[in-house]
């Protein structure tokens, strides 16, 4: 089958699986079987597109036309390919994990959960393969709406408040700014297609470029650029598999992916660096990186700390885009992949800890590492990858980003990146350290009632983080493949 024929399948499979899951409401085993099967199929479809894209092909399909010149268009290019691979690779793992977590915690409304999850994946894949801004916007909104029931899953007043904040910020920014920016682009450029080198060069001039860029950057609220980041910590009331795949990978990565895509294919990095319109963005991104790290230091709730860490790490990607140099763009794009692998490991571990012990605060984790060695081991590896230490994948994205700052002569930004890495060490490593080194409840002479019951979480909750931790390691050694895939987007 050729790539053009396969491409719509990538949307069709998760969408169809949502229907099948809904139809199997009464049969949990079938329902979860469908989820797993669909996720494997999707992975197969996405991977089957990879060779063609590596060979330089750009398969494009117009699903149908809204008005002349404006279609619902799917098109695969390297950046989208990388994002789709990440989402498709992590969905099967996450499904496995979800089954363990949702059953282990006896959550309600599990069918709704799996249905919304499948629709959210459809949205993420649609964003990855969007061939124009309108298509991107459509799937972007679909992702927002399909994740809302996941965030409010518990149905408590707290979850409802979080849901309001979630929907309020994401819809507010996307309709208020992003849609405006897209219509503006349409009215000046006459096209919304993503094109190498951008479509705006020569169409917009002067301060208007910076204003339009601001509309895009703040309009893409999923990138969690400060001050529009509050929805992400709020979304942590969701069950942990949601936080793991959606709020560490699919949703937030869809945000920074859109940022990258707009920078590279709508503005064009040459146009941006020639006009200097992205200078302000560097500072906003740098501020986000540092401030979010500081906030993360103050959080005792494990998921909240990880959420702020995510905000900070997303800032790296925006920073890479704002550098508007080849290295910056490649580094930022790599960061999308590397951070996804690292952060999902951390969330998996957080969820495994919760399932096994019902502990949510970092200060409660003392000594748990020795009874849950696999979970805490995976957490350590994930942390180190996010900090950016070899031999883990995260080091490459930091490397290219640093090279990017050097290329652009942005020494201040280089300093920001280095300081941030130290901050990462300061807020991530103590978690694993507490588990392994601080004597705690789980140790010998203490009263032998509850602690003795603490064991590793169910297998379905422990295997996925170990696999993703292994993934972090593999990404270090096989990063050249990723580089080869991403290099064409920054080619001048």
């Amino acid at each position, binding site marked *: 089958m050729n790539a053009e024929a396969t491409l719509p399948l990538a949307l069709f499979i998760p969408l169809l699986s949502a229907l099948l899951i809904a139809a199997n409401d009464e049969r949990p085993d079938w329902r979860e079987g469908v989820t797993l099967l669909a996720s494997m199929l999707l992975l197969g479809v996405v991977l089957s597109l990879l060779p063609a894209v590596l060979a330089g092909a750009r398969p494009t399909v117009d699903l*149908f036309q*809204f*008005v002349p010149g404006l279609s*619902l268009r799917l098109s695969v290019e390297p950046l989208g390919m990388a994002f789709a691979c990440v989402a498709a690779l992590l969905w099967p793992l996450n499904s496995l994990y979800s089954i363990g977590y949702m059953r282990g915690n006896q959550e309600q409304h599990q069918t709704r959960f799996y249905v919304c999850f499948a629709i959210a994946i459809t949205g993420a894949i649609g964003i990855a393969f969007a061939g124009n801004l*309108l298509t991107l*916007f*459509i799937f972007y*909104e*679909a992702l927002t*709406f399909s994740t809302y029931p996941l965030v*409010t899953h518990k*149905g408590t007043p707290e979850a*409802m408040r979080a849901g*309001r904040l979630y*929907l*309020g910020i994401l*819809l*507010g920014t996307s*309709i*208020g700014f992003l*849609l*405006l920016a897209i*219509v*503006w682009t*349409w*009215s000046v450029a006459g096209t919304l297609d993503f094109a190498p080198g951008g479509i705006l060069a020569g169409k917009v001039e002067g301060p208007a470029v910076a204003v339009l860029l601001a509309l895009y950057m703040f309009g893409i609220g999923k990138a969690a650029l400060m001050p529009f980041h509050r929805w992400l910590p709020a979304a942590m009331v969701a069950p942990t598999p949601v936080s793991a795949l959606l709020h560490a990978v699919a949703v937030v990565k869809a945000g920074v992916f859109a940022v990258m895509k707009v920078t590279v294919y709508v503005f064009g990095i040459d146009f941006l660096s020639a006009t200097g319109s992205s200078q302000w963005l560097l500072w906003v991104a740098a501020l986000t990186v540092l401030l979010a790290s500081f906030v993360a230091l103050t959080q005792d709730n494990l998921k909240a700390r990880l959420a702020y860490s995510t905000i900070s790490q997303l800032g790296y990607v925006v920073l890479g885009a704002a550098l508007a140099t080849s290295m910056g763009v490649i580094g930022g794009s790599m960061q999308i992949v590397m951070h996804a692998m690292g952060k999902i490991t951390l969330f998996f571990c957080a969820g495994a800890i919760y399932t096994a012990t019902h502990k949510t605060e970092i200060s409660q984790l003392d000594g748990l590492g020795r009874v849950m060695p696999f979970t805490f081991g995976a957490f350590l590896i994930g942390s180190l990858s996010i900090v950016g230490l070899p031999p883990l994948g995260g080091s490459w994205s930091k490397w290219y980003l640093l090279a990017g700052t050097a290329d652009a002569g942005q020494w201040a930004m280089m300093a920001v990146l280095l300081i941030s890495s130290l901050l990462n060490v300061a807020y991530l490593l103590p978690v694993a350290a507490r588990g392994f080194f601080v004597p705690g409840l789980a140790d010998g002479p203490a009263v032998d009632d509850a602690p003795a019951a603490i064991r590793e979480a169910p297998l379905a909750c422990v295997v996925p983080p170990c696999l993703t931790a292994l993934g972090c390691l593999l990404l270090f050694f096989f990063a050249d493949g990723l580089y080869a895939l991403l290099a064409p987007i920054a080619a001048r």
Partner: protein
Amino acid sequence: MIAHLPALQVVIPLISAPLCALLPAGRAVWLTAVSTSWLAFLIAVLLLNQVLAHGPVSYLMGSWPAPWGIEYRVDVLNAYVLLIVAMIGAIVMTFGRLIVERRIRLPEHKQPWFYTAYMLCLTGLLGITITGDAFNVFVFLEISSLSSYVLISIGRDRRALTAAYQYLIMGTIGATFILIGIGLLYVMTGTLNMGDLAARIPAVADTRTVHAAFAFLTVGVSLKLALFPLHLWLPNAYAYAPSAVTAFLAATATKVAVYVLLRFFFTVFGAGFSFETMELDRILLPLALVGIFSASVVAVFQTNVKRMLAYSSVAQIGYMILGISLVSVTGLTASISHLFNHALMKGTLFMALGCVSFRVGAAKLERMAGIGRTMPWTMGAFMIGGLSLIGVPLTAGFVSKWYLVVGALEKGWWPVAVLVLITSLLAVIYVWRVVEAAYFKPAPEGQIVREAPLALLVPAWTLALANLYFGLDTSLNVGVAQQAAEMLLGVSQ
């Protein structure tokens, strides 16, 4: 037969009205009304096809030649509006049987009168749209208005009576203004045929009489279409009318009034006179903006969901008027396509609310607690309508909003574009209040609610799916609207 379609469009529902009154209560009368309204829809489809294929159709009533006799004239614009009215009329009539049997304040033997009033209202609205004669517009306007006062007054809540009375007073003032306007034009030109008027007005355009006629017509029609600040009759009328009536009127009556406005501004007076000599856009623009904003804000604070949607209608009418005041092809396309899209979304929403009140008694927020789980299909339709109202992509509502924002940016009117988007966010707030109540609040103790019957759900879902379909395939709701806009502005393709 085909040649007489324009006459049949009006005559068939007109004849069925007394027929309904003669039939005994029960299925037969409903079947008569339903088959008539679907027949009217079929005729509207045929007419639109004919107009799209062969250009405007002119039909001389009783074969009296044009300026003297009554001419029915169908071009792209009114064929399109006819389609909207007939489509909604047919779907809502299908929906209406159970509502009439259970939810209106009429004893059973009087129920056929509902169908009579409905058919008369449909006749009136179709007549206003199809006729090419200014006085005929007034006649049909009175037919539709009088029957709609009746329809509103038979709502279950006794406040429906005062609401209908309020509407009666305001509507009569509006109709009087329109009549005065038409009378003044007749005095100046000696003709009532719209085409003829258009040819003769330029010669006398600089007289105070014509200016006054223009003002009377504008204010009169604005009253009927509930342009802010002349909208005060609308929220009560929509809130207390039976839900089938609200769905029908909200989706058609104001649309037809907007059509009349377009017809008079652009065809009869001409865009040059309306917007350059009289500078009407300077009046319409601020009224539209204030209307959109204030009605959206007020909607946020309503606890009666029907009333909330009624205020939202006032805001949506503001969008249509805003599109007109842009005086550009894109702006008019947005306006005209919004006639269609708004009919779809409000029809869906009011029918879904009809399902809700059929089961829980009233469309109040507190009564809707927990029905997301007990009435999943009803709330599903409501969600689709709500998303379309917000203007989420892949729904019909997105399409018109898109053109409106593009139109505003073409003119360089940044604040207008921003305001349109901000008010979409207000729509998110008021739609979401319902969603939260339906899906997150626990149902009251002891309340047992079942899903609405299929007879109500099928029509509601038909329109809900139309919201999705026309969000994807825009060849009808935008393609034809664009042709109509180009025709009105005299831009050749």
